[in-house]
Every structure is written in structure tokens, then in C-alpha cells.
């Protein structure tokens, strides 16, 4: 990615020679592009990004500062009241919101580790050579192409306490057959996490698989020559080779899990009680059913802030410690030299 980008910027843009004379005043190289060139290249993307991401995000901040019911004519400015209400657990918006944030937290904490480890195991298996490998790769990825409505309605029937096949077959093999998979806790979380892992593991597995295929075989050979065991090879060759991808997968999985909505909306309807009502569900209800756009926008920003902090922690955990050390060494050397 980065070499090609650098190339695009270095290359003279067609028809950019005339404005380049203006640039020479500032002592730029004669082959440097006009100042507008990179922006022109970026324009198509920026237009979409601006219209559908930046503008709504900015408008969202503005909305969150108002009592904004879009069916009403006036949207009184309320300053930070929407945020303060969220911080007050006794208010009608604060209490349920933190309940739903907690539900999102429970789901994220239980699904992310599984969604990091299980797809890795699947990818390691799929990276080996065996007959029918391509078929199995397709099988593991297959659920991911189904929509959330499809998998949720499917599993709701499969997991039904009284008429579902899961309990029926559990009973046939002599296991407890009366577990209320969707209407009691902690069974409801087990169901939601298991269904989500089944549904989305193919996506992470494919990314892992691509990364595994990028690790040079020579490294494994060299490790083998040095007498490294399978476990040592995994730990010292495979995992470091996966590090950049692992960071992407971790951040992405956390964000996806924190945005969970469809599964609990359709499978448990947020129940039993409100225990599986996630933050997104709460935001959607507030904004689109109760039309409280201001409050919903404030909730969204609180959730975004939490996710940004989490992502920051992940970036910090996965930082390239060797690279940091090298840079530090270089700096020290430069200082010594001067």
C-alpha cells in the first residue's frame, strides 16, 4: 500500500507542469506535482467520505446538543444536558443506557477472545495440505454470507426451549433437554455468543489464512534447522508474522461485537428482562422509535468514545516494540554524534 501511494504522489500529474512553476518559488523539485494534484486524486473518495461519514458525524455532535425530535418544528438547544442525563443513572435515559452498555460489554468480552482464537485454529488447519481443503474452506466461510435476520430466525427456532431441535437431540443423547437457551441467563448469552462465533468466524479465518500464507517458508525452515519445536515455531515465527493482521482483526472484532444488534433483537428481543439489550439496540429505540435524536446521538458519541479508547489500548498493546527500540537507539546515537 504505502510504496504505491508514495509513487502516485511523486509522479508528475498530466497537465500539472504549468502550476508547477509557481511551486518552484518555494524551492520544490521540478518534478513535484502541483499542490492540488493529490487532492484531485482524493476527491472522489473524499466526496463520499465527507457526505456519508464526516458530515453526519459533525451533524451528530450538533444534534446531541439539542432536544432534537425531528417531527417537531423547534429543536431547543440544551447544551450538554443529553450527556449529563446519561451520566445520571436515575434519569430515564441514563439508567437503561448503562444497562445496555453493560450488556454490550458482556457480549464483547465473551465473544472477542473466541473470535480471535477459534478462527486462528481454523486458519491453521486450513493452511495445512489435505484433500477437500478448498471445500472445507468454503464450508467455514459459508455462514458469514447469510444475513443477520436469516441466521437469527434460524437459530431462534433451533434453540427454542420447547419445540427446538437442539434440546430435542440433547435429550436423545441423555443430556439435559430443558435448557431455556433464549429466555434465561446465562444461557441466553451462551446462545448469542455461540451463534455469533459460528456466524462470523469465517471472516476472521480468511484474513488469518491470507496472513499465514504471507509468512515466508524460509523462516520455518530456518527455525526447523535450529531445532525449534512445533510450539516454538508457532510462538516465534507464526505469531510475530501475524502481528500486523492480528491488530486489525482485534480492533475490527471488538468494534463489530460492540455493535451487536440484530442477534439479540431477533433471537431474545433483549430479554430475559433487559439483560441482552445492547447499546445499539437502545440507541435505535431512542432515536428511531421514540424520535429522541438528541439523546440517541449523545449515546452514540459515548459509545464511540469508549470504542476509541479501547482501540487505542489495542494499538498500544500491539505496537512494534522492536521498532520503537530501534528508533530510540537511532535518536540516542544522533544525539551522541551532535
Amino acid at each position, binding site marked *: 500500500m504505502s510504496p504505491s501511494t508514495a509513487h502516485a504522489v511523486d509522479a508528475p500529474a498530466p497537465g500539472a507542469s504549468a502550476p508547477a512553476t509557481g511551486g518552484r518559488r518555494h524551492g520544490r523539485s521540478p518534478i513535484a506535482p502541483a499542490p492540488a494534484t493529490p487532492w484531485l486524486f482524493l476527491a472522489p473518495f473524499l466526496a463520499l467520505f465527507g457526505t456519508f461519514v464526516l458530515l453526519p458525524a459533525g451533524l451528530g455532535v450538533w444534534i446531541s446538543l439539542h432536544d432534537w425530535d425531528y417531527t417537531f*418544528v423547534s429543536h431547543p438547544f440544551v447544551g450538554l444536558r443529553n450527556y449529563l442525563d446519561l451520566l445520571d443513572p436515575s434519569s430515564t435515559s441514563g439508567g437503561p443506557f448503562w444497562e445496555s452498555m453493560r450488556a454490550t460489554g458482556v457480549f464483547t468480552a465473551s465473544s472477542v477472545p473466541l473470535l480471535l482464537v477459534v478462527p486462528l485454529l481454523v486458519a491453521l488447519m486450513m493452511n495445512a495440505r489435505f484433500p477437500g481443503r478448498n471445500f472445507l474452506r468454503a464450508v467455514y466461510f459459508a455462514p458469514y454470507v447469510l444475513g*443477520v435476520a436469516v441466521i437469527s430466525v434460524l437459530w431462534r427456532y433451533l434453540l427454542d426451549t*420447547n419445540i427446538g431441535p437442539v434440546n430435542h437431540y440433547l435429550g436423545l443423547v441423555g443430556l439435559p433437554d430443558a435448557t431455556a437457551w433464549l429466555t434465561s441467563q446465562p444461557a441466553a448469552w451462551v446462545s448469542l455468543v455461540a451463534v455469533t462465533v459460528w456466524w462470523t468466524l469465517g471472516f476472521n479465518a480468511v484474513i488469518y489464512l491470507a496472513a499465514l500464507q504471507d509468512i515466508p517458508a524460509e523462516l520455518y525452515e530456518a527455525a526447523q534447522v535450529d531445532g525449534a519445536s512445533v510450539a516454538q515455531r508457532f510462538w516465534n515465527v507464526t505469531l510475530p508474522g501475524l502481528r500486523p493482521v492480528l491488530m486489525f482483526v482485534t480492533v475490527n472484532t471488538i468494534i463489530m461485537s460492540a455493535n451487536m*444488534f440484530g442477534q439479540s433483537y431477533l433471537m431474545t428481543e*433483549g430479554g*430475559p*428482562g433487559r439483560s441482552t439489550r445492547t447499546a445499539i439496540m437502545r440507541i435505535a429505540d431512542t432515536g*428511531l*422509535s*421514540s424520535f429522541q435524536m438528541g439523546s440517541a446521538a449523545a449515546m452514540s458519541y459515548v459509545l464511540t468514545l469508549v470504542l476509541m479508547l479501547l482501540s487505542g489500548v489495542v494499538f498500544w498493546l500491539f505496537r512494534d516494540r522492536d521498532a520503537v527500540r530501534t528508533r530510540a537507539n537511532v535518536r540516542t546515537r544522533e544525539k551522541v554524534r551532535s
Partner: protein
Amino acid sequence: MTKHLSRRGAARTLTGTAVVALGALALSACSSGGAAQREAAEFSATYDGPAVTLSYWNGFTGGDGPFMQGLVDRFNEEHDNITVESNTVEWAEFYQKLPAAVTAGEGPDVGVMHVEQLSSNAARGVIDPVDPLLDGLGLTADDFTSAIWDAIEHDGARYGVPLDVHSLAMYYNTEHFEDAGIAEAPTDAESFAEALDALQEAGYEHPFWMPARWPGHLMFLSGQWQGGGEPYAADGSAATFDSPEGVASLEWMRSVVDDGYSPGDVAQDAQYVAFKNGETSITFDGIWQINDLEESGLPYAAAPVPAVLGEPAVWASSHQFFLPHQQSPDADKVAAAQVFIAWMSEHSGDWAQAGMIPARESVRTSGVLDGTVQEPIAEAIDTMRFLPPVPGLGTIQSETLEVAVADGVLGVRSPEAALSEESGRATSLMEENLARFGG
């Protein structure tokens, strides 16, 4: 399955709604028209202007859909200069989309919504009063039960033209009843308990599955009304579903599970599927399920919901034609829309084939219901109860009352605790709404 599927479409279409909503935001941000007081359109009985095409929004996605489309097709055939185009979406999506679309000036020309949604949409300025239309059609309180006539009023104006009423009904498997030697459908607490015992003796282990979700809250409301209680203060100032009658209603629901007539943890839809499969003998569900049951070939019959907790009373709702507010009204379309509503009201007898009960007494007693499954239920129309016309109540109910009923039936919380906690929560939400909608 209209109701059963009603909440599901929302997940898929959330994004779509959000986009519409965003459009509405952008528009409403710069518009300054008044939303508080809406003008009623003048009545016109006929339309002889230039050809117009009306967009007609409704939520008849279930077995009732083909019947509605049949009526629309007939209307189009009979009117050369009016073409009605139906746009049918799931109800849950409908109620999210409509306010956004109308605010953005992209609303329909005519539509149908549930009676309990009229006040919310009237208060938001999404729909216009229809008093001239009702007067012009000669529709008066005499042609309707007072419960429904009162329910279409908001702030001194009427906002809906009633098409039908639909209530909960008791469905029972006639084969099971024969096996158990039950000759007549139970009507009160005593005969209902006897029937359950007889069915169990005949070998039907779980004769009455108790749902935690839909339509559990409708059964709860029916029970509270039977006991003489009210779930909400009529002026919208407080939730009272934790009254002694409410607690008695939920305790009875839970006792059906505790006494072994129902298995525990009956999740969404399970009781209806079980009934269709002949696994349970009795179920309470909406009369809109009649066509679905007819198709299933199940030996069944329908009767009014028995008065287990006191006097006969049952939850009901009603489909209402409405005129959406127009940012820039087209007089031709408004006139044509009224002709359409008037025609539909005249032909509401044919709508009975969709399993519904015509709202107008004159139509109801004209013989259109003779021999239909819903005929015995239609006779109990005076016992039908509607939610009070309080703006925003529907959303509050699904966030509080439905959670309390589910928890009570599942045994997660005691009926009394669940109801009083959720009722308190509902009251504070209602107070906020009262302030928002200006009392």
C-alpha cells in the same frame, strides 16, 4: 402473521430508516412551518379532476395483504381517473418511516395505521384531522362502539376513519376438545379451569402454553381490564398496570405455568407453532391469524377470550385510514384520497374475508360475518377495549409493560415486583412525554 412478524423487519431496514431520518433532519432544520396545529382538508364526495396517482401506505404484510390488494384493484377498476399504488411494509418499520417521510415531504397521500398510533402521530403533526371526511360520509358515533369512537380523538379532533376492529380470540383444537368431552367453549374462570383439567386427563399434558412475549402483554391487558383495572391513566399522566387487578392478571398467567398447564420458558412464537402442530389445545391470539389457521388444515374453532379474571373484556385494536400531513398539498390528490377512503369504508364488509371485523355497525350487522370464524368474536364487540389515545404510549409500553409481563411469566421476577418497577419507569417516561407534547 402480520403481528408475529411485525418487529422483525426493523433490523434489516434500520439503515434505510436512518437514511430517511437523516433526510428529514436536513429538511426540518431549514423549514419553519408550524407543526402544532393542522388544518383539516375539506370534504369532497366525488373526484372528477385530472387523473391522479395516489401512494397508499399500509402494513398488511400477512394473510390480510392479498385481500387489501384485491380491494385496491377493484377500486382502481371502478375509478378511471384515480390510480392507487400500495406500498406495504412491516408495521414496525411503517411507524418509524412514516414520521420521517412526512417531515421530509416524502409521505404518502393516504394510509392505514393502528388506532393506538393515531394520537402519537397527530401530536407530531404527521397526520391531519379527518372530521370533515367523517361528517361528509355521515359517520357518527352511532355507527361505532363508543370505545373506538373515543379512541380516534386527539385534542378535540378526530384523526382516523375506522376500517375494522380486531381483538384477541381464544382458539381451540376441536379434536382435543372432543377427546376431553368438552362440549362448549369455556367462558369464565370456572369453566376454563375445568376445561384445562379435562384436557390434561385426556392426555394432553400441556393444554395451554403461556407465551412470555407476543401476545403475552395483550393477554395481560385483557386480564387487567376483566378485573376492572386500567393499565394507564386516561390523561396519560401515569402508568397503573401495577394495580391489584394488574398483579392478579400476571399472577394468573404465571400460575398457568406453575400449575403445569404450560411448559416454562415459552419463547416468542412457540405457543402458536405448538398450537398449529396440535401440541397444545388452547391458545389466545389475534383474529388476523384466522386465514393462517384455515390454510394449515387444523381442526379448530374460535371463541371470545374467556373472562378468567372477572367481567368479559378483551384487548382490541383497529385499522384506521388517515390523511398524512402534506408540506405542499395537492388539492386533487387530497380530494381523490378522500374518495378512496370513503369507498373503502363502504366496502369494509368485504374486508371481513381477511379475518377482520368491520368497524361500522351497519356493515357488521348486514350479514357479511354470517358463518365466518370470527362471527362469535364479533358478537362480543362491546367487551373490546382499546389503549387510551396517549401520544407516545406504544413505545413506552414495549419498553416497560412488555418487559414486566415477560419477566413475570418466565418467573425471573415476581409479578408484583416486575409490575411495580416497570410501572414506575413507565410513569416517569409518560411524564416526560406529557411535557414534550404539551399536556
